[in-house]
């Protein structure tokens, strides 16, 4: 294990990716503390407010404690638009570890001030805070789906490969049929038939299940292939001779042999779940408002006016990109270490 990590950290990309992911997960773990606003915060008077500018040099050119100005909303009659202007009359200083509503946050602003580091969305919710809360969903959905995919895939592939014959044929035809349906088509259909009126936890759970339903077949097929070659080994015959049950042989003797493949497959497939969830939520079929996920936050970027005049609404896309990139780079290196035959990056 130690050797594995030593090898992992030798690679520059792996080091950076690993560090990035650790930071991302720490941030979402402590989202309640780091985010300046709660997940239910919404300021209806400040829809689409631009990011607050934080100043450290005051108007006299002197270094000052960081401060910000509030925005005031105005209606521009010539342009027929709502515009935001800074209210320069009142400075609001930033505070470290303030107590808001009985809870301590990492940072905040003086009473009456508003601090929107990445602006606000259509409902006047702080985009920065929502990014952190949304990360909780987007970054965990992959792992949770894998928790379902792996037992199913291992058992299905294990049984199919071990018994062979008609069982194998039937099970594999079914898996192939699932794989033959374009996965994203199946995904949106499954998501669309979810009943409405669920709690957000139920919905999240079902999205995870749906993602898993798409992913298990391919995994099961590869496991089956490995089991086919393992089942003729001597130790399997030995287990059979001493009278071990079939299930025991599959679970205790054959499947553990596939561990390194399982780990590789796991790291390599997490990005695809992150992308699938964000795609679904982007279409409005995944995680629903008012809950945040990076995908459903990007839903607002579907409108032209938003992407041109409110570029801060695009930030979730950048985070998806960073997370997926880190997982991909890390996965490449892990594959090289565990599977010396593959030479992708050597």
């Amino acid at each position, binding site marked *: 294990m130690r050797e594995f990590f030593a090898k992992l950290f030798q690679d520059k990309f792996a080091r950076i990716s690993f560090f990035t992911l650790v930071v991302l997960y720490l941030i979402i773990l402590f989202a309640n503390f780091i985010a300046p606003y709660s997940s239910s915060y919404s300021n209806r008077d400040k829809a689409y407010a631009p990011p607050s500018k934080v100043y450290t040099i005051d108007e006299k050119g002197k270094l000052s404690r960081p401060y910000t100005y509030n925005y005031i909303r105005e209606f521009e009659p010539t342009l027929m638009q709502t515009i935001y202007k800074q209210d320069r009359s009142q400075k609001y200083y930033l505070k470290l570890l303030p107590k808001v509503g009985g809870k301590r946050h990492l940072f905040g602003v003086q009473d009456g001030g508003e601090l929107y580091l990445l602006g606000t969305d259509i409902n006047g919710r702080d985009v920065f805070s929502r990014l952190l809360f949304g990360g909780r969903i987007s970054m965990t959905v992959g792992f949770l789906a894998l928790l379902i995919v792996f037992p199913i895939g291992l058992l299905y592939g294990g049984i199919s490969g071990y018994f062979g014959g008609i069982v194998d044929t039937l099970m594999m*035809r*079914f898996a*192939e*049929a*699932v794989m*033959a*349906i*374009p*996965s*994203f*088509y*199946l995904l*949106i*259909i*499954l998501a*669309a*038939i979810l*009943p409405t009126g669920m709690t957000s936890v139920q919905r999240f759970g079902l999205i995870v299940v749906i993602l898993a339903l798409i992913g298990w077949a391919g995994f099961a097929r590869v496991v089956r292939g490995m089991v086919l070659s393992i089942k003729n080994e001597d130790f399997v015959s030995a287990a059979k001779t001493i009278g071990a049950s079939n299930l025991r042989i599959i679970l205790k003797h054959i499947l553990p042999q596939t561990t390194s493949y399982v780990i590789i497959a796991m790291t390599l497939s997490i*990005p695809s779940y992150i*992308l699938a969830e*964000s*795609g679904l939520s*982007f*279409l409005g*079929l995944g995680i629903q408002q008012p809950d945040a996920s990076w995908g459903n936050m*990007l839903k607002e*970027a*579907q409108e*032209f006016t938003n*992407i*041109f005049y409110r570029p801060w609404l*695009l930030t979730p*896309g950048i985070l*998806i*990109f960073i997370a*997926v*990139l880190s997982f*991909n*780079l890390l996965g*490449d290196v892990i594959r090289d270490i565990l599977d010396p035959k*593959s*030479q*992708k*990056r*050597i």
Partner: protein
Amino acid sequence: MEFFKYISKRILQVIPLLIIVSIISFFIIRLAPIDPLAELRLNPSISQETLDKEIKRLKLDKPIYIQYISWAKSFLKGDLGYTSAGEKVSTKLKERIPNTLLLTSIVVFMTWIVGIPLGIFAAVKKETVFDRTLTVVSSVGMAIPSFFFAILLLIFAVKTGWFPVGGLTSYNFNEFSLIGKFFDLAKHLVLPTVVLFTISLSGLQRQMRANMLEVWDSDYVKFARAKGLSEFKVIFKHALRNAINPMITLLGFEFAGLLSGAALTEYVFQYPGLGRLILEAVMKSDINLVMASLMMGTIMLILGNLIADILLMLTDPRVRGTK
């Protein structure tokens, strides 16, 4: 003769696959808590009588397996039913499928033209600056969510005004001359193609590089070199011919990935393809349309795999031998 036997065997294998897929899809859709007649029920001008007729036609009062059998019968006859807006499903599909096929074939063609040489080159120049840069670039290409990339390109298109935003043709398409029509189409295709191209190129290039590296260490390549063949001949006559075979199998998978990736891209660019059709159908809970486009998507995917298998048979004598 051997060749035709193999192909007909592969085609026969497709039939049970399609039956299982149709059963899976049918049950998913019919067991869902969606009322296929909701839209009709809400329409006050539709009488109870018409509703009853529709229920009879869809056999909604019968058990689900009878519904499936009647659906399958009419599907085989080419009768795909009507959309909830009253159009024929088959007309709708005929309109959309060629668009998706056009987009995906352009993308597959371009990724192969660019990706294969890049992969070969990266493998031959392993560990050089060129190779390392390409690895980084392809990682980036694989990590961008397709819809996000599409949005970024939309911004670019509007800011520069170089490309039309969305659709497949301009509103005055029919007034153009033949050449004008061609350029109009091409212009509309650029952005969606770029999105899908970037995403599938990265994967293809990496795979090609990996395959090439694998054969690079084999004895026959070393032998070819030892014989004193030129590097060019070693690469193209000996290494490439072996490294390309797994890529052909991959062609089928690439097609599958493209169909899925295309759905989101089509959605962002308002491209009239199959992916967007199924999305719209899903949002409107238009059951006939969803079922039919799901089947069409599946058939396209299976055909893609079939073509890849046949191609592989043509290029790889080993496959011909064993089958």
